[in-house]
């Protein structure tokens, strides 16, 4: 079979030379990679595109937990502040008389009808009781965990 790439008088010689050139002798990982691939364990992942991939799934979960708690804390305190504002600025004498006079996350706001409406104390108490520091501890414990045997450079 004739092949213009090989048989052409002007390019054939170089084509044959290209085909005969084996660059693989330049490789410095040939044997190491083979051993790792065949070791049976999880193969090495030489390309880790972004630092974010170095976070273990558990760390992502912990970060999500912190995010949720932060949102809950912000929402809870907003409700708390709203309740305090409402208590501090009575618009009707009946409301003013109905406020419990207590402050803080467990304060109950009495409506004009006299029915106590508890503030969302569960989340607020949880955050004040140290859930946030706990979550931060979880994150720092799990931290940046190498994935699939890849350790960050320099470790």
């Amino acid at each position, binding site marked *: 079979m004739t*092949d213009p790439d090989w048989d052409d008088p002007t390019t054939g010689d170089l084509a044959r030379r290209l085909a005969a050139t084996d*660059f693989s002798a*330049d490789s410095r*990982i040939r044997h*190491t990679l083979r051993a790792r691939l065949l070791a049976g364990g999880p193969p*090495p992942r030489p*390309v*880790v595109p972004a630092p974010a991939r170095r976070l273990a799934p558990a760390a992502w979960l912990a970060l999500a937990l912190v995010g949720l708690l932060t949102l809950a804390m912000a929402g809870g305190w907003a409700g708390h502040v709203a309740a305090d504002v409402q208590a501090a600025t009575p618009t009707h004498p009946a409301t003013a008389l109905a406020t419990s006079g207590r402050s803080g996350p467990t304060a109950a706001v009495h409506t004009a009808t006299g029915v106590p409406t508890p503030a969302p104390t569960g989340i607020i108490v949880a955050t004040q009781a140290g859930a946030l520091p706990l979550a931060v501890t979880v994150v720092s414990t799990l931290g940046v965990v190498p994935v699939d045997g890849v350790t960050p450079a320099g470790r």
Partner: protein
Amino acid sequence: MLDRTIPALADEAAWVARAQADPAAFGALYDHYFPRIYSYIRYRVADATLADDLTATVFVRALAGLGRYETAAAPFAAWLFAIARNAVSDHLRAERRHRWLSLDVVREWISLEPPPESVALAGEMRDRLLAALARLPARERDLIGLKFAAGLTNRRIAELTGLTESNVGVIVYRAVRRLRTDLEPQEPAHD
């Protein structure tokens, strides 16, 4: 050594089937294809360490995806070089983001292996060839890498790249001619 008629691995289908059942059997496929994969990647990227990095990526991906490979769909070489092309393309698309960590990882591996003597023996011609390759457009480097390093036919290259077979032939021919011109020694001007 690579030549125009790169022989297929004897009983390749059987080796593939064996490796699909037991990754430890992947060694024969690895040994057969490593030079071709590395050389193809070296055609496409100038840096030897980066070529190591991408070659490792190819074989990791191949081993991980071997269970999904179907012999009837395509020859193993075509499947493997499709992975190689994708790995190089991925790298070229996101070169700046990828490079900082991947090279560090590969350098850890490099420290485990002695420097090959062949590196020291690499002649000026090889260096000039690599330099000339680096001056070719990316598509031409891809095609002549598939042609000469991978040892694929124009038809197979056309299937991989989406070009027509004749178009592959033309591009490869022009690329080789351009390389030849680039590699020719500069003759002194005569009066």
